[in-house]
Each structure stands twice: as structure tokens, then as C-alpha cells.
């Protein structure tokens, strides 16, 4: 097989590998095209146009409402994750304190416990804290799920900063907090971008946590709203609105991915190397 492959001419190889790449891209292109194409049983029955998006925009609480919910959840998750993991990574990399290893390993242990196992008690716990049906409660839970990766990432980011940099800041009379904000934050910026990107994508795309934690239909994020729209019109699935919803869901992720591809790849790689 391998020898056979090497014997193929370069153009033939390119056609075959290009075809393979198309398999990965075509479904996305198809969704975009189908969402504006005429199709019976959808809002867009004749001619090309944006009627599917119009139906999506007018669905129940309205598309803008769901996008706003998703943006709020993702924004809060990104901010919480960045703050907690910036301080946590600093503590784990630069300080020695009692219980440090226990806390670090416990943070990583979050990865080992299945999502569903934690969401059932979290549903009860958030009710107890008065955070039921709230976007903040959901963002706090999503932040917790991000912490293993984020803390790990920020710890290795701080550890790869030359020690002299922090020490020279202390010599110059900086406190540990000033050293962090003035000297170290710029040095760990790539790590922060990776952590922020992953937190955003995870929160924007999450499905099962809001499914369990959010009951109020006006507060659901976009993925849940799009999944709900399918069976709304007298039990008949509206594929046009579904396709439009997929496009709205996918476009921000793909744009972010293409802009920050290098960070995305590095995030996986650092996790892979050490994990």
C-alpha cells in the first residue's frame, strides 16, 4: 500500500488527497448553500433567499435572544476561566505552598468524572444556591469543566517563562501582583489566547449542560434552540431552519478557528505532549 502510494505521480496524489479534504469541507459548504436554496417543506420554497433565516429569527424568543444568551454564557465563561487559570497557573508554577500538589491533581481529576455524573448533583446544587435557570450558574459550571485544561496550560506557560524575569521584577521592588500584571502577563499571552479560545468554543458549543441546567425556554443558548426548532411545525421537521441554524452556529467557530489556528493547534499539541 505504502509503496504503491509513493509510486503515484504527484498530481495523482494531489487529486486523491484533495478529494479526501473535500469530504471534510463539503458538508459545511452544503449546509450554507442548502440554507438559502429552495426546498419544499421549508420557509424557502421558491427561488433563492433568506427566508429560512427569517423564520429562524422569528422563532419563539427570537434568534437575537438566543445569540445573546450564547454570547453572555461564552463571554462569562471566558472571563472566569482566564481569571481563575491565570492566578492558578501563577500559583502552581511560581510558588510553593502546602497542599499545592493535592489541589493541582484534584483540578485535573475533573477530567476523569463523566459530565453526566457531575451535572445531576450540580442541578440540585445550583437550585440550592439560587442559581437555577441562570446564565451565570451555567457559566460557572462550564468554567469548572474548563479548569483542568486551562490550569494545566497556564501552569506550563508560567513554567516556560525564564525565572530571572520574575525575580528581576521582585528585585525592582514589585510585589508578586505587580510582577504578574506588569511583567508576566505579557510573557504568558499566547497561553491566555489558547485558553480563552478553547473556553469560548467549549461554552458556545456546549449542549448537555444547558439541556440539564436551563429549563426556561427564553434562556437557552443557541445550540439548544436550533435543536428544538426541528420538530416545531406540526411535528414536521423544518430542515431549512435547521440548516440556517447550523450556519449561524458554525460561522463564528470557523472564523475563530481560521484566525487563531496556530494557537488551536498548539493547545492540542501541548496537551498531547504532556498528557
Amino acid at each position, binding site marked *: 500500500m505504502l509503496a504503491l502510494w509513493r509510486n503515484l505521480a504527484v498530481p495523482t496524489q494531489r487529486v486523491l488527497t484533495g478529494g479526501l479534504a473535500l469530504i471534510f469541507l463539503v458538508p459545511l459548504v452544503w449546509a450554507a448553500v442548502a440554507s438559502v436554496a429552495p426546498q419544499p417543506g421549508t420557509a424557502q420554497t421558491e427561488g433563492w433567499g433568506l427566508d429560512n433565516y427569517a423564520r429562524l429569527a422569528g422563532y419563539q424568543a427570537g434568534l437575537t435572544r438566543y445569540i445573546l444568551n450564547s454570547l453572555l454564557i461564552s463571554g462569562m465563561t471566558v472571563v472566569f476561566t482566564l481569571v481563575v487559570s491565570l492566578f492558578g497557573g501563577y500559583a502552581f508554577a511560581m510558588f510553593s505552598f502546602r497542599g499545592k500538589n493535592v489541589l493541582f491533581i484534584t483540578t485535573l481529576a475533573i477530567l476523569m468524572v463523566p459530565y453526566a455524573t457531575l451535572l445531576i448533583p450540580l442541578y440540585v446544587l445550583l437550585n440550592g444556591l439560587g442559581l437555577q435557570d441562570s446564565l451565570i450558574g451555567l457559566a460557572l459550571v462550564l*468554567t469548572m469543566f474548563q479548569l483542568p485544561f486551562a490550569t494545566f496550560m497556564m501552569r506550563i506557560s508560567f513554567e516556560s517563562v525564564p525565572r530571572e524575569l520574575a525575580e528581576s521584577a521582585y528585585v525592582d521592588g514589585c510585589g*508578586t501582583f505587580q510582577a504578574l500584571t506588569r511583567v508576566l502577563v505579557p510573557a504568558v499571552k499566547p497561553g491566555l489566547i489558547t485558553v480563552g479560545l478553547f473556553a469560548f468554543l467549549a461554552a458556545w458549543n456546549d449542549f*448537555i449542560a444547558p439541556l440539564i441546567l436551563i429549563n426556561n425556554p427564553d434562556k437557552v443558548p443557541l445550540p439548544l434552540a436550533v435543536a428544538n426548532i426541528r420538530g416545531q411545525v406540526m411535528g414536521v421537521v423544518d430542515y431549512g431552519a435547521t*440548516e440556517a441554524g447550523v450556519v449561524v452556529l458554525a460561522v463564528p467557530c470557523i472564523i475563530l478557528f481560521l484566525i487563531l489556528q496556530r494557537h488551536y493547534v498548539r493547545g492540542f*499539541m501541548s496537551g498531547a505532549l504532556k498528557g
Partner: protein
Amino acid sequence: MTAPVEDGRTAVQPSIRGPAASDPAAKRWRAPRRRISHRNQGWIYAAPTALFVTVFFIVPVLLVVQMSLSDWSLFAGNRGFNAPENYVDAVRTRLFWPAVGFTVKYTVITTVILIGVALGMALLVQEASRWNSLLRTAFLVPSALGLAAASLLFYALYAPSGPFAGLLALVGFGNGSVSLLGTPNSALWSTVAVIVWRFAGFYMLLLLVGLQGIPADVYEAARVDGAGRWQIFRHVTLPLLKSSLALCTILCVTGSLLAFEQFYILTRGGPDNTTVTIVQLVYNVAFQGRNDLGVAAALSLVVLLGLIIINAAQLRALRDKER
């Protein structure tokens, strides 16, 4: 004047200081205030992490254990200790064994296909070139999508009026309006296809990291010894890639055993409950119909236990092979 610098170091390893350090007066003289505060400041910076981990991880883990031992319904809340009733109920739930069987079958199929495809793709694009980096990007784009968005996309692709049904009709299957999610087997394979599409690039990336860790002179030595390409792959690449492959396998097995979104969106467990996974069962017991959080908690702890056993077995198999 080296005291402050040394001070930063001793904050990490206080025990390396000489006897002078144990003298309180000498300690104060050597700018100790910062050293002492440095040590305590570690906890200040770690406090947000500790708070999050305690409130949203440790407390829920303890709570789920308590729930699994109590009569705990969705609406009435805790109605007291009833162990081991929930565990007995969980295992006796009508769909428990079918769900376990289906989840394991799905996990084996997905893992074999996904790792195989990802390995092939990684070998294909491992050499650095502009074309290969374009290919890598194309393979990776689907992994930017959420699993829910990917499932919704394929739900539309699989529609009876959708393009896949049309393609199947072209090659002679069906009349152009078959439902790809209509039979147990086609529903299973259609879901596997979504997962391969969504995750192949991700696992390719993990395997590329492993491939790039293999030094070029190892290949050179094998070639000098007269090894063919297949022999090099079989006896050089695969053994040296083993830890990356093991990582991929553990991630893929864990992810597949906990499958939920793809089936919730694509099949809703149908047709006839043939594609209910174990996490779906947990969700259904807790929030759909039965509304019994106690039994759901017990079920999810059984899942956690199974997961720990399976991952421990995988790690042990890996270690035994290395010996």
C-alpha cells in the same frame, strides 16, 4: 546584595538554607518579610481555583454519592436514606443491559475506525509542505464545530429528502427518500460517520505530534539495514508511536462510552430504543418520565466505576507491553 534574588529561590526550597536561617534575628536581617509573604501568597493566587474545585467539583461528587444512597426525586427532593435500592433499580432498569451492550458496540466500532482513519491521515500529511498544511487545515475545520452543530448538520444531510438519500438512489439503493436513521444498523453507522467526520482531524493532530517525535535517524538506520516501507511502518513507526496511539485510544474510548449529544439529536435513542446509550439512559431516568435523581445518580456512579476499570485496564495493558 544578592539577598532578594536568593530570597525568591528560598521561597521554593526553604530547607537548603544554612543554620543561620534558623536564627530568628538573622532571618529578619536578611530581608525575610518578602520571603514569608511570598509563601503565603501562593495560596492567595490558588484560592479561586480551590474555591471552584471545591464548590463545583468536590461538593457535587460527594452529593452524587449521597443522592445515590437516598430516595431523591426530581421534584420532591431528598426523602431519606434508602440504600441499596437505587443501585438495584439502576441495574434492573429495563434498558440497562441493552444500553450497555449498544454503548460498548458503538465504542469499539468508533475507536477502531476513528484511530485507523486518523493514523492514515497523519501519515499522509506528516511531511511539511504547503499542500500538506492546506490538507491539515481542511481536516481540522470540522473539529472547530460543536458536536451538537455537527450532529444537526448531518441530521439535515441524512433527511429523507436530503442529499445522502439521493446519492443512495443514484447507486441503486432505495427510491431517493430512504431515512438513513430508520433502521438500527443504519442509525449506528450514520452516527459513526458523523463522529469520524468531526473528530478525525483532532486525532490526526495528536498522532502528528507523536510522528514528529520520532527522530529522522531512526528511519535512516532502518533504511540502511535494508527495511522496506511496510517493514519500517510496522517495526519502527508503530512501536514508537505507541504512547500517542494509547492516548488517542483512551480519549476515544472514554468519549464514546459517554456518547450523548450525537444520539440525542440524530436518533433520540430510536428506532425502538435500539440506540440508547448509557448516558442517555442516565438523562432519561433523571429528567424524562421517571424523574428519579437517586436512581440516575446510582447509574452514573456505575458508569464512573466502569470507566475507571476500563481505563485502568488500558493503562495496565500498555505498561505490560512496554516491559
